[in-house]
């Protein structure tokens, strides 16, 4: 029977459109438990490939015949081996091209909305890692916020839309993924902004991103305003786009809030986090739509695949915004911190420009979930 490959893009569509898929994940158990492909209607079976070397007959009864079966491994080699074995005993089967490595890298651009004067706002959803990047487009110009390292995805969309990238922002010095912001700016001549409080150790030139800074995009001057909102890092800055969207970076997510410990001590920054979430954000209009820089689970995706929700809704529903006592808030965000993201200290060094790993090394550093939140 036939063996076919499925690309990360095809899997992403299945996840977003809530299709069924049976995933036979042949990585070792720890890797699977730590991080897997998420989908509402996905089913899973985890059997390490090295337990299948003598044959797949034992697992055949567990593989459904009425659904697509996708074999997944870290890089693809083992999934092809297992898929071939399954196909030899008479079943149709898919393997994931490039494995979890390609899943971690895949980025799906989804249009969030139209903006004033024919502008558009795009959200780039990196399903495998839970990273979200943004691009504001209008009348020949583009602004990018929190770009991941696959710069060509952004420059390609800019080409397709025939726009010039003018401004590139990072809301903070990222610790879970490698930023593409500086490289996009170098390539396109755009201005690269970084909050100076986060940039004390960086070794390249940047334009300081300071509270109250406003840039406009395109002829209809879509306004992108910076709001200093520390807590995840000391420099963390939010953006208000077109007076309608609040880009929260890693401070506020749909179902969780930012963790304060990835660049220092949780105890030091928990006060800032409280101040940002309970005072600064409270002063904003509740009808702003929150667009965070991450999601943690697929449940945070809307039906169209975007990750966005009204600020007022979050005030009502997000547990992290509803802890009355300051003391309890402190405990919540410092006592039960999840494990830190893979290689987060190295990733910070890369984002400071202090080390320049090759592509494979960067991929290796970014393996696994983002873990920037605390619930």
């Amino acid at each position, binding site marked *: 029977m036939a063996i076919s490959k499925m690309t990360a893009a095809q899997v992403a569509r299945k996840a977003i459109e809530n299709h069924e898929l049976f995933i036979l994940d042949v990585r070792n*158990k*720890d890797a699977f438990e730590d991080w897997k492909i998420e989908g509402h209607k996905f089913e899973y079976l985890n059997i*390490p*490939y*090295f337990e299948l*070397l003598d044959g797949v007959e034992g697992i055949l009864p567990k593989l459904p015949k009425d659904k697509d079966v996708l074999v997944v491994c*870290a890089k693809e*080699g*083992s999934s092809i081996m297992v898929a071939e074995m399954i196909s030899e005993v008479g079943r149709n089967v898919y393997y994931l091209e490039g494995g979890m490595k390609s899943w971690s890298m895949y980025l799906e651009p989804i249009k969030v909305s139209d903006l004033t004067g024919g502008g558009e706002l795009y959200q780039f959803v990196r399903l495998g890692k839970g990273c979200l990047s943004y691009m504001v487009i209008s009348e020949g110009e583009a602004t990018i916020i929190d770009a991941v390292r696959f710069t060509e995805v952004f420059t390609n969309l800019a080409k397709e839309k025939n726009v010039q990238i003018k401004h590139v922002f990072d809301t903070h010095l990222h610790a879970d993924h490698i930023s593409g912001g500086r490289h996009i700016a170098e390539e396109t001549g755009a201005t690269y902004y970084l909050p100076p409080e986060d940039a004390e150790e960086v070794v390249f030139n940047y334009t300081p991103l300071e509270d109250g800074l406003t840039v406009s995009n395109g002829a209809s001057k879509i306004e992108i305003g910076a709001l200093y909102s520390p807590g995840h890092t000391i420099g963390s800055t939010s953006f208000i786009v077109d007076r309608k969207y609040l880009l929260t970076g890693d401070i506020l997510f749909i179902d969780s809030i930012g963790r304060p410990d990835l660049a220092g001590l949780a105890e030091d920054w928990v006060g800032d986090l409280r101040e940002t979430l309970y005072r600064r954000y409270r002063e904003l209009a509740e009808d702003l739509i929150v667009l965070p820089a991450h999601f943690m689970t697929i449940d945070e995706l809307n039906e169209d695949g975007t990750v966005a929700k009204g600020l007022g809704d979050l005030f009502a529903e997000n547990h992290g915004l509803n802890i009355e006592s300051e003391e309890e808030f402190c405990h919540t965000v410092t006592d039960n911190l999840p494990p830190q993201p893979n290689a987060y200290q190295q990733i910070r060094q890369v984002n400071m420009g202090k080390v320049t790993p090759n592509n494979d090394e960067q991929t*290796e550093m970014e393996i696994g979930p983002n873990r920037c939140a605390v619930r």
Partner: protein
Amino acid sequence: MAIKADVQLDVKGLTCPMPIVKTKKAMNDLTDGQILEVQATDKGSKADLAAWAESIGHLYIGIIEEDDVLLHYIRKSGDSEVVEKKFEQTITNEEVIDRASNGGFILDVREEAEFTFGHIEGAKSIPLGELEERLDELDKEQEIYVICRTGKRSDLAAQKLSQKGFTKVYNVLPGMGSWNSELSKEL
């Protein structure tokens, strides 16, 4: 430093699943208790070889990273067969440190590679297979606490020492596999 292995397997440059496919094949040709050194460059082999060894019942001894090469050490395990331990003088893991500090010494009869990746500080290493020819390194007047991973090899070693006229010999149980205190490494 070089670690002693009975067989070397070169899977450098091969990517998953080949390192494990080849290791599995090579392991078939080893006899129980022998040590295989797997030389790999695929980083994925790190977690997978250990997990594979555990699933089969082999002992994954440890890994050394030398430049870009990962050296894995795996001992083919025959420990799963239950063998009755015959040597009657025994002592527990908990007792052995106190006793050793009163003039006796710990004799670790596991393979050198296992010893290198973690042993009780001050223990002397003589692998079971070399014991007979190295008896002159031991003192009949001292108390000797023989230890291995599960008590099986040390049982055989203790019997051998006893046959050779050593009387103050104890088998340490349950052995290094259950050792909870600090270990020293020589890597």
